[in-house]
């Protein structure tokens, strides 16, 4: 009981914010310059990190698979497995995790400090709506940039895998790419991207909620930021399973 009530309260709070975000999106004029600014800052903040994670994921997979598949004499098929794994699963999930840690924490810290310095109250007091002014541009920016970053991660990851596959599995780069193009279909790619739209929404709403409910001064900002990253990561993993199942059924 002690955990259940705060947990349900939290879920209710996040759901209410998600609802208001979507509702206000259609009710109020969207601040385009704020949206563009957010997308640009998310992109510049996370691209290098996402690229680094993607290239090394591709590389380590090639290394492992060259050994693992080699035991069955299937070394030649390294490309197919890497392609499927990255495009369907690792690209979307790892990119979203990086987005949560890099951007989600930033959003929470920014909104959290705005709350403790009464800037959010100031917005309300001046007759403006904090959800429209602060939450919508950030959530939309996450929703738009998550798939964009994932496309880049997919490509970079596949090429990272190729470099190592050529060196360790002894296959040519042309063969590697042919294998991937033959196996990975557009559906794999689009299902992976669709997931990141949801992940982006979750990251945006959860980090904004954490930021807006910050209390307890600067110490509270630190706490809220850590929590935002943890909750985003947990939600990404849990929803990943259900979203994957859902898209497979469709």
């Amino acid at each position: 009981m002690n955990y259940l009530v705060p947990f349900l309260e939290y879920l209710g709070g996040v759901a209410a914010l998600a609802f208001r975000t979507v509702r206000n999106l259609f009710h109020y004029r969207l601040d385009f310059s704020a949206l563009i600014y957010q997308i640009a800052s998310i992109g510049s903040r996370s691209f290098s990190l996402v690229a680094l994670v993607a290239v090394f994921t591709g590389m380590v997979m090639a290394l492992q698979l060259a050994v693992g598949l080699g035991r069955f004499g299937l070394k030649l098929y390294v490309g197919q497995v890497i392609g499927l794994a990255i495009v369907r699963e690792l690209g979307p999930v790892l990119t979203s995790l990086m987005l949560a840690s890099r951007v989600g924490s930033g959003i929470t810290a920014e909104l959290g400090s705005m709350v403790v310095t009464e800037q959010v109250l100031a917005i309300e007091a001046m007759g403006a709506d904090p959800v429209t002014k602060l939450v919508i541009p950030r959530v939309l920016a996450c929703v738009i940039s998550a798939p964009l970053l994932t496309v880049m991660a997919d490509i970079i990851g596949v090429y990272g895998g190729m470099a190592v596959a050529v060196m360790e599995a002894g296959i040519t780069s042309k063969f590697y790419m042919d294998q991937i193009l033959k196996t990975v279909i557009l559906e794999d790619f689009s299902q992976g991207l669709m997931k990141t739209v949801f992940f982006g929404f979750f990251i945006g709403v959860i980090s904004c909620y954490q930021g807006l409910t910050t209390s307890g001064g600067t110490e509270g900002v630190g706490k809220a930021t850590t929590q935002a990253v943890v909750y985003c990561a947990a939600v990404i993993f849990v929803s990943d399973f259900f979203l994957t199942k859902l898209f497979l059924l469709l």
Partner: protein
Amino acid sequence: MRNANPIIRFKNVSISFGRLNVLNGMDLSIYEGETITIIGGSGSGKSVTLKLLLGVLKPDSGSVYFQGRDVTTMNEKELIQMRKQFGMLFQGGALFDSLSVKENIAYPLREHFDYTENELDRIVAKKLSLIGLPGVEQRMPADLSGGMKKRVGLARAIAADPKVILYDEPTTGLDPANTQRINRLIIQLQEKLKVTSIVVTHDMESAFMVSDRLALLKDGKICFVGTKEETKKSTDPTVRGFIEGKMTEKDREEQMAGGLNELL
């Protein structure tokens, strides 16, 4: 003045956070054109009173009237319309860090009116000269001192020519020179703009300097309201304690207990 209808009226307002009763049946009437100061110790619910008035918080029971309309039952659109008539100076200024001084002051104007850039420049310059800081339009809040931030915050509060200005601890954390400056600004604005002002503070000197009337908030109720002279002459022990900066024996015990609880 007393015979007129109050512009703002708190009627039997109660609010609690968790188990903490902050306001407990508070009543207060505020009249157009006056400056009233609400004094009270830390955590007595002074800032909560301002938030209730703006409709940011909803009371558990009771009503808050602004120009005869109940704030607690307004919907979002009505609240926004009402808030247009308020300007608020926050404790730390609450300037938006990401915006320049000009954009900060122009914020309420952009929100509610369709001024051209030239008109905005002119209004912002006028408000800045009113608070004695001409020419700082392009500076960022991080480059301003504490006192300057408060004055820019004040310029933003009066940007949209509000009917009512709310001051939340206007002099807290300022050096004596800046405190005097803010006090003088409050009085000047009052004379020039003929607005209704509500000041929330525990700085008695400032309270006596700027206000027409004082109200003392204690135990969730307004336990004393009176003009400056009435307040000075009051024999009520709580009022006297506050004026002379002394705590009653009960307050001291409570504060000690509170402090110990926080430590444990």
